[in-house]
Structure formats: C-alpha cells, structure tokens
C-alpha cells in the first residue's frame, strides 16, 4: 500500500515536473521568436529549408488529401443534414464544424505524421551523434539555430496549410451543396456569410498557431532527451509522438471551451 502510494506520488511529481519543464522550455523558445538577434542568416536559411520541407514539398499531396478527404466529409455531412431535416443548420455546420474545427485538425494530423515525427527523430539522432554538443562547442546557440526555425516553421505551415484546406473545403462545399441540395452559388454564399463569425475564424487561426508551436516544440524537447545510445532514439520518438497527440487533444478541448465561454 505504502509503495503504491509512493510510486503514484513519484509518477505525479515526474509528470508535473516534465510539464513544468516543457512550459519553461516553451517560454524560452517563445521569447527567442520575438528577439531580433535570433534571425541570423544561418537561422533564416534553416527556416527556409524547414518551410520548404514541411509545406512546399507536401503541398501537392496535402491538396489532394484535402480535396478527397474534405469532399468525402462534406458529402457525408450534407447528406446527413438532408436526411435529418437539419438543412437550416447547413451554414453553421459548414463553418463551425468543418472549416474551423475539422480543417485545422486534419492539417495538424498530416503535418504531425510527416514532419513532427521527422523533427523528433532528427533531434534524437543529432543528440546521439553529439552534433548538438559540437554546435555548443562552436558557441552556436542551439535554440536559435535549431529550435526557433522549426517552431516558426510549424506555426507558419499549420496556419497557411489549414487556411488552404478550409478554402478547398469551401470550394468542394459549393459543388456538394449544388449536388445534394440543388443550392445555387448565391444562396451558398449568403448562407456562409450569415454563418461566419470573425471571432470563430480568429480562434481557428490562433488554434492553428498554437498547434504549430507545440507539434514542433514537443518533438524537439523529446528528441533532445535521447541519451548517447542509438537504442534511445525509438523510445524518445514514440514518447514524443504520444505527447504530441496528447497536446493536440488538449488544445482542441481548450479551443472548444474558449468557444463555449
């Protein structure tokens, strides 16, 4: 009984300490983002490469997935609305559910699976290969050079790709509203305008930025936790990815609470 209590207490303390460390670490990185000194030419080069790998390279696949998955989703949702006689809520469902909720979620899941996992592994490998130690020896600021460009890339990529996904969904919504409801473009446009709130869009964009920040920061943090053994790489990668998904869920819940309040 005593040992169970001790174990539980130890685990809770470890979790709280890890959470506090992550927040402190996030604070450090966040402050660096707003410092002019951070944006050296080397950092800018890294940032450019990161945006290229995360957004530009993935763009054709991302657009294709958005069109296929988004159209499928919109088709199913519209069909359900028609069947349940909830056509009156068409605009609110399209804007409130699909554009401001599902679109950022779809984007963040795709980017997490492709880029966050890559960042986590990259950091862990660099740690194992002592590349980070070497950078520190050359007095290169690891946070400025490695971390900040990746985090900024995460924010920019998620915001831009999520917005693109939303626009793709709205365009495919035009087609499906015509096919399922026989709705003209003018009516569709009016319904969307009536259902749109700027506050919802701002919350969605802010949520995307938060997603971008944490889905890059958490893998970096866990990647840097790797020891100098190669066997530690898969452990920290899996831990990092689990925590990233937990963070996504927490952010989603918080955004819903913000909307309710």
């Amino acid at each position, binding site marked *: 009984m005593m040992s169970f209590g001790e174990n539980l207490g130890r685990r809770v303390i470890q979790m709280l300490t890890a959470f506090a460390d992550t927040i402190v670490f996030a604070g450090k990185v966040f402050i660096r983002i707003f410092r002019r000194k951070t944006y050296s030419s080397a950092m800018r080069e890294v940032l*450019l*490469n990161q*945006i*290229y790998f995360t*957004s*530009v390279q993935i*763009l054709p696949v991302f657009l294709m997935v958005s069109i296929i998955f988004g159209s499928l989703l919109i088709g199913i949702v519209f069909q359900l609305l028609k069947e349940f006689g909830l056509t*009156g809520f068409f605009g609110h469902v399209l804007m409130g559910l699909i554009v401001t909720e599902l679109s950022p979620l779809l984007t963040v899941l795709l980017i997490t699976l492709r880029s966050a996992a890559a960042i986590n592994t990259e950091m862990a490998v660099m740690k194992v290969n002592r590349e980070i130690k070497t950078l520190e020896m050359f007095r290169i600021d690891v946070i400025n050079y490695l971390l900040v460009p990746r985090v900024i890339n995460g924010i*920019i990529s998620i915001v*831009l790709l999520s*917005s*693109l996904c939303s*626009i793709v969904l709205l365009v495919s919504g035009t087609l499906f509203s015509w096919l399922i409801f026989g709705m003209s473009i003018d009516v569709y*446009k*009016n319904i969307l*305008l*009536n259902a*749109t*709130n*700027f506050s919802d*869009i701002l919350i969605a964009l802010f949520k995307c930025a938060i997603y971008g920040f944490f889905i890059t920061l958490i893998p970096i943090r866990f990647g840097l936790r790797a020891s100098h053994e190669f066997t530690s790489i898969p452990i920290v990668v899996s831990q990092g990815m689990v925590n990233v998904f937990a963070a996504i869920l927490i952010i989603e819940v918080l955004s819903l609470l913000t909307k309710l309040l």
Partner: protein
Amino acid sequence: MTLSREFKVGLFIGCTAIIIVLALLYLAAGKGVFENMHAFTLSSKSGDGFTEGMPVVFSGFNIGKVQSLELNDKGVVLIKIKIPDRHVKWIRSDSAFILYRPLIGSARIVVNTTNLNNPPLDEKKIPEVIIVNDINDAIARIEPALERVTQIADNVERLTSNLSDPKGDLHRILSNAGKITTNLASKKSLVEMVVSDEESVKALNESLKKLKDITTTVDRILTKVDKMADKTDSEIYGKDGALPQVNVILKDIVGKLQKLDKTIDNINKISSDTSEGTKDLHILRSDIDDTLKTVEDAVKKLDAIIGLKKVPEFKVP
C-alpha cells in the same frame, strides 16, 4: 528551368497569404464591415433572451445584429441594433420588432414591416420589442394536458387500489355474486330464491293461474267487441251505409250551392245595372225639371199674353 528553393517557398507563402487575405476581405465585405451602419434602439421590459450579436432577421434573412444591451435608469432594457446601409430600407416607421425564441435553434429579433412605403424609422425613436416564446408557449399548452394526465393517473391509481383492496367494492360484489349463485343452485326456482318462502311461491303460482283465466275471459270479450266493431263498420262505411249516403247528399248540396252562386251573381249584376239606371234617372229628372221649367216659363208668358188680349188666342208653335 528549375526554380530555386527560396523562390518556391516565397511563392507558397505569398500566394497562400494573398488567398487568405482576399478570403478575409471578401468575408468582411460580405459581412458589411466596410458599409455604413445605421443604429436603432429598441426597448424591452426584460433582457431575458437577448444576447449581443443576436441576429436581426427580415423575411428569414439576416439584415443586422444586436450590438449592445443596456439597462436604463427606469429599469428598461435598451437593445441597440446595427443595420447596414443596404438593409436599412426594410426598417420603416411601422416596423414591429419581435424577439422570437424557438423551441429549437437560437433566438433572433424578427422585423415585421407591413407597408414598405411608410417613412423610414427615426433613429431616435425607441420601439418596444414583442416577445414570442415558443418554450413558454409550449409549456403553457402542455401544463393543462399534464394536469389532466395526472388526474387520470390518480383515478387509475384509486381504481387499482380499490380493485386490489380485499375489503373493496369489487371484492364485495364478487362475494355477493358467489352467494347468489350458491343460493340459486340450492333453490327450485329464481322466484323462490328472491322471496325465500315456499308458501309465497305457491300463492304466486295460483295468482298466475287466475290471471290466465282472466285473460281468457278478456280475450273472449275482446272478440265480441271486435265483431261488433266489424258490424258497425259495415253499417257506416258499407255500400248502403250512412257515410256514402251523407256523401251523396253533400255532393247534391254542393251542386245546388253552385247554382245559387250563379243566381246571386245575376242578382248582383241586376242591382249594379239598376244603380247605373238610377244615375240615368237623375239626368232624366233634371231634363224633365228643365222641360217643366221651360213649360212653366211658357205658361207664364202665355198668361201674360192672355191677360192683355180680349180673345185669348194663341198660336201653337
């Protein structure tokens, strides 16, 4: 031509940013952010159901929204609504503002304008909002029904408790029915069971027998009466009966009366002719009077002439 990585990234960020900005600008224009807004103030005794940002609807279309809610010094809720320039034409001086709270869906202020030719609503005027509440209406309608259901349930409960009660009416009726059936099984007849006395039953039987004799006698009398009635019938209604003869007499009288009618008509004619004749008599009389007068005058003249001459001689005309 291979595009550099920098160019690709720049193109991606630039194009996406432009698309996002254009979409937001389009949305802003559609929402009337760049339009002139007209503010109207409405009043309500209660702020219940009003929220900031609540849509203002005309004919099912959003034309504006609630900007703010205030409580003035008199305790009246002031609702400030903002209507864009292109929709202000729907707000006229006779417009009614109704807070509609549907059972399902969000509340909204519905604008009802009967005559669009009326002058626009003065922005300083404060019309009162009429409140239509589907939930309260539904509750008000359901309440009496619920009361009835409760009453029915109470009655059903009372009935069931009565039925299940061993000392209840039903059990008493059933036990009585049991007693009756056992009693019926032990007696010779239903009458014996009812009067519970064998002598009475015998007396009743004798009375019934006497009643039978009486009915036979009555039957016989009735047959005789029937025969008499038949005879009377033939005497009155028969071929040589009284009634056909009366009919013949009556017909004769009717014929004579018709003849008498003609005679009376003739008499009437004669009397009318006579009265017309008497009119002629008057004229004749006056003619005779005139003639007599003339003759009298002539006689007077003759007298005068004869009185003057010795030999009364005159020439007849």
